[in-house]
C-alpha cells in the first residue's frame, strides 16, 4: 500500500473527482495558477482548464454563494475556502442558504455542495489565522461536517461527500498536510459518517478528531507505560456525531476524556460530554474531562501557542486527574 502525504492524498481526491464527473469543478482563492494555498491543487488547472479549476476573487460570500447557486443549478462544485478563519465571511451563505434551502423550500431545492477549509493552529500564525471553529458548522442542522485525520481518510472522504445530495463541510487541520500515512488505493466505498477506534483500550476512552488525533495517540502510549490502557476514538464525522460508538466505549471503560482544539466553552467536547451524561450516565465512574484550547485568542509566540493548545502532557494529566 502506498504512503502519501495528507496534502497529496487531498490532491489525488480532487483530481479523481474532476476526472470522474464533468459536473465537478473546483472554485477557490488561488486554487488554479497558484496550485492551492496548501498546494492541494497543484497541476489541476493545467489538466482540467480554467472553467473547472476556477480561481476566485477574494469574495468568500460571493464565491461560496455562487457555489451554492451552481449546486442548485446542477453542478457538483468543490468550493475551497482557504481557512476556516475566512469562512466567517461566508457564514451567512452557508447557514442561511446552503443548510436551510431544502427544508425551507419544502423539499424543492437541494444543495449538493462540498466546502473544504483548513482549520486549527500550530504554525505561529496568531489568532486570526488559528481558529478551530468546526463546531459552529457542526451545530447547524442541514449541514454535515467531516474531519479527516489521516491521509487515507483525506483521500477517500471527498468522494462520499460529493455523492451526498446535501452540503458537506470538510475541515482539514493545517498541521496535517505534511504528515504521511498509508493510503489504500481503492477501497470499497468509504463510510465517512462513523467514528473509528484507532487504539483499543479498557481503562479510559479518549475521544478526539482531526489535528488532535496524533497527540491523543501519543498520550495513550505514555499512559500505557503507567499501565493505563486508553482507548482512542477518532470521530471522523463531527455532524452527525457517532454517539453510539462513544457510548459503547465508555460502557466498557467507565471513564472519558474529550480532546478538542476548539475552545472548551460551548465546544465540541461540551456536546460529547452532554451525550455521555444523557446516554452513559450509569456507566460513568468519574465526571467526563475535557482537554481543549485555553480560552484565549491563540497567541503568536511559540511557547504561548504551545501552552494554549491541547498537549500530550495535558491529556495525560487529565486522565490521571480523573477521580
Amino acid at each position: 500500500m502506498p504512503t502519501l502525504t495528507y496534502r497529496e492524498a487531498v490532491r489525488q481526491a480532487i483530481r479523481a473527482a474532476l476526472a470522474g464527473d464533468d459536473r465537478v469543478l473546483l472554485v477557490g482563492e488561488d486554487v488554479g495558477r497558484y496550485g492551492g494555498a496548501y498546494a492541494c491543487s497543484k497541476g489541476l488547472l493545467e489538466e482540467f482548464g480554467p472553467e473547472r479549476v476556477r480561481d476566485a476573487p477574494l469574495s468568500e460570500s460571493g464565491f461560496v454563494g455562487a457555489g451554492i447557486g451552481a449546486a442548485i443549478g446542477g453542478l457538483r462544485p468543490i468550493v475551497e475556502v482557504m481557512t476556516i478563519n475566512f469562512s466567517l465571511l461566508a457564514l451567512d451563505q452557508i447557514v442561511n442558504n446552503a443548510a436551510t434551502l431544502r427544508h425551507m423550500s419544502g423539499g424543492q431545492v437541494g444543495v449538493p455542495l462540498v466546502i473544504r477549509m483548513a482549520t486549527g493552529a500550530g504554525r505561529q500564525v496568531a489568532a486570526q489565522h488559528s481558529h478551530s471553529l468546526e463546531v459552529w458548522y457542526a451545530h447547524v442542522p442541514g449541514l454535515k461536517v467531516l474531519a479527516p485525520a489521516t491521509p487515507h481518510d483525506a483521500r477517500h472522504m471527498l468522494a462520499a461527500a460529493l455523492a451526498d445530495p446535501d452540503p458537506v463541510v470538510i475541515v482539514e487541520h493545517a498541521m496535517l498536510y505534511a504528515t504521511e500515512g498509508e493510503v489504500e488505493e481503492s477501497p470499497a466505498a468509504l463510510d465517512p459518517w462513523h467514528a473509528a477506534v484507532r487504539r483499543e483500550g479498557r481503562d479510559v476512552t479518549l475521544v478526539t478528531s482531526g489535528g488532535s488525533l496524533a497527540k491523543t495517540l501519543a498520550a495513550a502510549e505514555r499512559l500505557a507505560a503507567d499501565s493505563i490502557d486508553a482507548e482512542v476514538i477518532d470521530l471522523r464525522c463531527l455532524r452527525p456525531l457517532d454517539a453510539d460508538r462513544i457510548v459503547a466505549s465508555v460502557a466498557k471503560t467507565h471513564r472519558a476524556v474529550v480532546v478538542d482544539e476548539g475552545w472548551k466553552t460551548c465546544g465540541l467536547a461540551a456536546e460529547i460530554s452532554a451525550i455521555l451524561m444523557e446516554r452513559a450516565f450509569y456507566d460513568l465512574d468519574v465526571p467526563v474531562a475535557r482537554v481543549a484550547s485555553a480560552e484565549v485568542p491563540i497567541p503568536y509566540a511559540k511557547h504561548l501557542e504551545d501552552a494554549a493548545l491541547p498537549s500530550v502532557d495535558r491529556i495525560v494529566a487529565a486522565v490521571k486527574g480523573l477521580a
Partner: protein
Amino acid sequence: MPTLGADMEAGTLVAWRKQPGDALHRGDTLAEVDTEKGVIDVEVFHDGVLDAILVPAGTRVPVGTPLATIRAAGEPAAAPVAAAPAAVPVPPGPPETGEVQPAAAVAPTLPLPTPPLYAPALDALGRLRISPSARRLARELGVDPRLVKGTGREGAIARADIQRTAAGLPAAPQAVAPVAPAVAPPAAPPSADRLDRMRRTIAAAMSRSKREIPHYYLSTTIDLHRAMSRLDCENERRPPEKRLLAGVMLLKAAAMAIREVPELNAVWEGERVVVKPVVHVGVAISLRQGGLVILALHDTASRSLDDLMDGLRDLTARARAGRMKSSELADSTITVTSLGDRGVDAVWGVIYPPQVAIVGFGKIVERPWAMDGGLFVRRVVTATLAADHRVSDGHRGGLYLDAVDRLLQEPERL
C-alpha cells in the same frame, strides 16, 4: 421519589392521595410510599396543580424517579403527547422545613480537634458521594455502599472501592442484606418482612455508629419534685385528652439546654460538622412488636408544652400506623430516648448518624434525696448524654446536663 436518608435506594408507591387537577399547597401529602422504614407521606413543597401521575400505585421505583408533574395554577395541562420526562434527580435530601436561614450559612463550622478517623462519604445534603457506576455495581454485587470507604475526591466511592469491599467481605452471609434483594420472597408475611428489613436498617446504622464514632458518656440524677408536682396539679385541672406527660417536659428541657452547648446540636456533612441553629429533637418512638424509629419533633425548644404534647401524640400515632413524613425522618438534630414508666433507671444511647449526641432519660422513680441536711423522698430521673468526642468533650457535656437539671428546677419556664 424523594430520598429519605442515605440508606434508601428505592420505594414502592402505595397510594396516590391527590388526583391530576387537584390543587396542591405546600405541605400537602401527595402520595404514600413504602420504604424499609414503613409508609412515608410524600410531601409537596410548593403550591401548584397536580398535572400528571407518572408512577402508578403499587410500583417500586429507585430514588430520584419522577413520580408526577406539577404545574403552576392556571397553566394549561401538559399536552398528552409530552415525551416521558428524562429521569430528573430529585434534589437530594428533603429541604429544611421551617428553617428560615439555610443552616450552613449561619452555623459556625467547628475546627475539628483531631483529624476524623473516617467520615461517612456524605455530600453537603447528606447524600452518599458515590459514582453512578459504583452505585449500580454495589447493587449487583450486593454491597451496602454506606459501609464502603471511598478513595475518590472528597471520599467519593468509586467502582474499585466497591470491588475491594465485595472481595473483602467475609464468606459469612453479609452483615447487611443487599439493599434490594433480587427477589423478595413474597411468602413472608409483609409485617415480618418489614420488621426484618427495619431491623437490618437499624443494625447497619448502629454498627457503623458504634464502630466509627468515639462516644463519651455522662450521667446525672435530676430531682423532679418541683416539675412533677407542677405537672400533677396541672393535669388535675385538665380533661384526659389535654393532660401532659412527664416525657414532654424532659424533651423540652433537653431542647432548651442546647442554648448552653450548641455544638451538641449538629450533624456531620462530609468532612465537616455543621452546628444547626434550630433544635429538632429526634424522639425515639418504639413501635408495636419491637422496632424503633427516630422522628423529628420540629423546633422543640420554642414550642409550648401543649403544642409539643399534641406534636408527640401525632408523631407516635403516625409512627405506629407506619405513616411518617419524609421531613420527620431526616430533620432531627439531636436524639432523645426515654424509657418512660417502664424499663430501667438509666439508658446509655448510641448516637444516630449523622448526629453528634444522644440524650437518655431513665424511669422516673422515687428515691431518698438528701437536701439542706434533711432526707426526703423525691421523684428523680437519671439523665445521660452520649456524645461524639470529635465534636465536644466531657466538660462541655457536663455543662449541658447541668443546664437540663436547672431548667427542670423551674418547670414554669418550660
